[in-house]
């Protein structure tokens, strides 16, 4: 059983929801990221998404766009990120995921990428510009090396939900609303309809992301599924606090975990 499945199984047993925070690797530098990841895990994060900076992140709003820029300016590369994951793995056995654009994998070499994921301990990879139909780009290599490509569904997926959700591994990433990443003050998605369809077909846990900016929202959204993903709101703190972001991020993550813990409902089927 991989770390992702193990984690969600444990959460289910405890009747808990997952909190999945995101940070951009190398923002403002990799030393800071290397401190942020364990600090977030210590503060209650269940899985961590590590963003690989890309020059042209088309699925991101301004906050993560700027973080990507800062990370590239600080000289962050994929090889250095793998080095960091390798060191983090000496300290933690919690699931670590990379969130990145397909070109970064393609150009690095899909086989080499997946083999380094396995070697350093990356459990899964989220690739927002690789839709279900193009999954063949990495599926073979990912399977060979035990890396889980996380599938995504969106409120615009409609009849596609069955196809995507039924074959998802690890967990299903449910995009909360149309648009790019970034904080939203309100959501217009019909969540009960959307998650109703998702829950009908998904055989794995579901986590919701995009636009969740505070513990209250995290709790509300997590109530529809098995966990909440929070990115821009955390990256915003890193933007403000820079190298000293660890305490503020940890305390925010703690409040988010409290938010999802207070969420009604329990893990799937249980």
């Amino acid at each position, binding site marked *: 059983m991989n770390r992702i499945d193990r984690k969600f199984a444990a959460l289910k047993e405890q009747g808990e929801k997952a909190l999945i925070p995101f940070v951009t690797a190398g923002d403002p530098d990799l030393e800071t990221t290397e401190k942020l990841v364990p600090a977030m895990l210590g503060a209650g994060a269940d899985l961590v998404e590590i963003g690989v900076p*890309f*020059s*042209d992140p*088309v*699925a991101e*709003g*301004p906050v993560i*766009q700027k973080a990507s820029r800062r990370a*590239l300016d600080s000289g962050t*590369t*994929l090889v250095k990120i793998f080095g960091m994951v390798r060191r983090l793995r000496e300290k933690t056995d919690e699931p670590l995921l990379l969130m990145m*654009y*397909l*070109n*970064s*994998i*393609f*150009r*690095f070499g899909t086989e080499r990428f997946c083999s380094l994921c396995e070697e350093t301990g990356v459990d899964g990879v989220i690739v*927002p*510009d*690789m*839709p*279900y*139909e*193009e999954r063949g*780009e990495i599926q073979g290599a990912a399977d060979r090396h035990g890396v889980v490509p996380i599938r*995504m*569904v*969106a*409120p*615009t*997926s*409609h009849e*596609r939900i069955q196809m*995507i959700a039924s074959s998802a591994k690890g967990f299903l990433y449910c*995009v909360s609303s*149309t*648009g*790019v990443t970034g904080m939203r003050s309100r959501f217009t998605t019909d969540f009960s309809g959307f998650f109703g369809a998702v829950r009908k077909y998904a055989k794995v846990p579901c986590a919701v992301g995009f636009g969740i900016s505070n513990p209250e929202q995290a709790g509300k959204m997590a109530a529809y599924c098995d966990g909440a993903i929070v990115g821009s709101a955390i990256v915003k703190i890193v933007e403000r606090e820079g190298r000293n972001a660890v305490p503020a991020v940890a305390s925010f993550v703690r409040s988010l975990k409290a938010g999802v813990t207070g969420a009604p409902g329990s893990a799937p089927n249980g």
Partner: protein
Amino acid sequence: MQKAGRYGEFGGQYVPETLMNAVHELETAYEKYSRDPEFRAELRRLYRGYANRPSMLYYAKRMTEDLGGAKIYLKREDLNHTGAHKINNVLGQILLAQRMGKKRIIAETGAGQHGVAAATAAAVFGMECEIFMGVKDMERQSLNVYRMKLLGAKVTGVESGTGTLKDAVNEAMRDWASNVESTYYLIGSTMGPHPYPMIVRDFQKVIGQEIRSQLEEREGRLPDCIVACVGGGSNAMGAFYEFIPEKSVRLVGAEAAGKGVDTALHAATITKGSTGIFHGMKSLFLQNDEGQIMPVYSISAGLDYPGIGPEHAQLAKTGRAQYVPVTDEEAVRAFEYLSRMEGIIPAIESAHAVAAAMRIAPEMRRDQILVINISGRGDKDVASIAKYRGVKLNEPD
């Protein structure tokens, strides 16, 4: 059989899940309306009565005599309404948007030619229009910015990244993902996720079809060579497509080499690029070893793009078309040359094709025919070329 939307290994649909149903809807709508006689008739009427098609095929007598080789014809896309080939695609896509029930269109623009064309079509069809344009390009092409506003479009400056065409595409894709139900993304070149490269090519292929029939009438034969500039590749694909099966017709694309392909300042994607996945497609891109998209440079804001349409990538790979780099200096010389020689001021983009043709024509026989696609007119570039040459122009108060 080749999978739909693939050109060899190139092409595909690499967009976020949020947009997948939108690209599929577009595929379905295009499939339906491209065969609909009423749709086709309306597009023909717009081409003829609004865009001023067919565009002329002009025999460049003085240029032919001066270069001393092939007989040179100019395909005058610069005479289209709005001054460039861009209107061909825009009229087709706006009809499609209208049939699909969309109320708002968005578009990216580099030099502003596609933005102007999109704003024009939106005005004719009474649709809301927002154009995304890099802030650096807005500076270089302020006349076109004003033109778009005059046409009733909202122009949104894009500051992220390099503030040029690729960043405008990024921002347009972000807007599309945010407003996918109401909005039609009117892509201006043969790029992006399937079905865009096919749709844009189909709406531009009228250029090559006209070249064939006009030349047949004048010379009773096919051309020997067609030269067009390539940024994303729409005017070149439009000129080439009809002749791809005609193996005797040499197809040449002129890429922007900026300060030279051995410097960091160029946009010669085919000459210097490598395979990648970006802006919805697998194609050739200028990128570093980490897959970060590189800043590109050209004097021409319309060619200043780090990628190329997937069908061009395949034509280059199979050798069916050749792509040659043309520097800023060569393009500016060609811009001046065509102005003096034929009384035609070409767009600086099209001047890249003229420059490539000036190299090729003298090596061809006098009984051979070379067609240059003059994709746009150069009024928009006059001020920046004057600046390039150190000529100071007085701005009226």
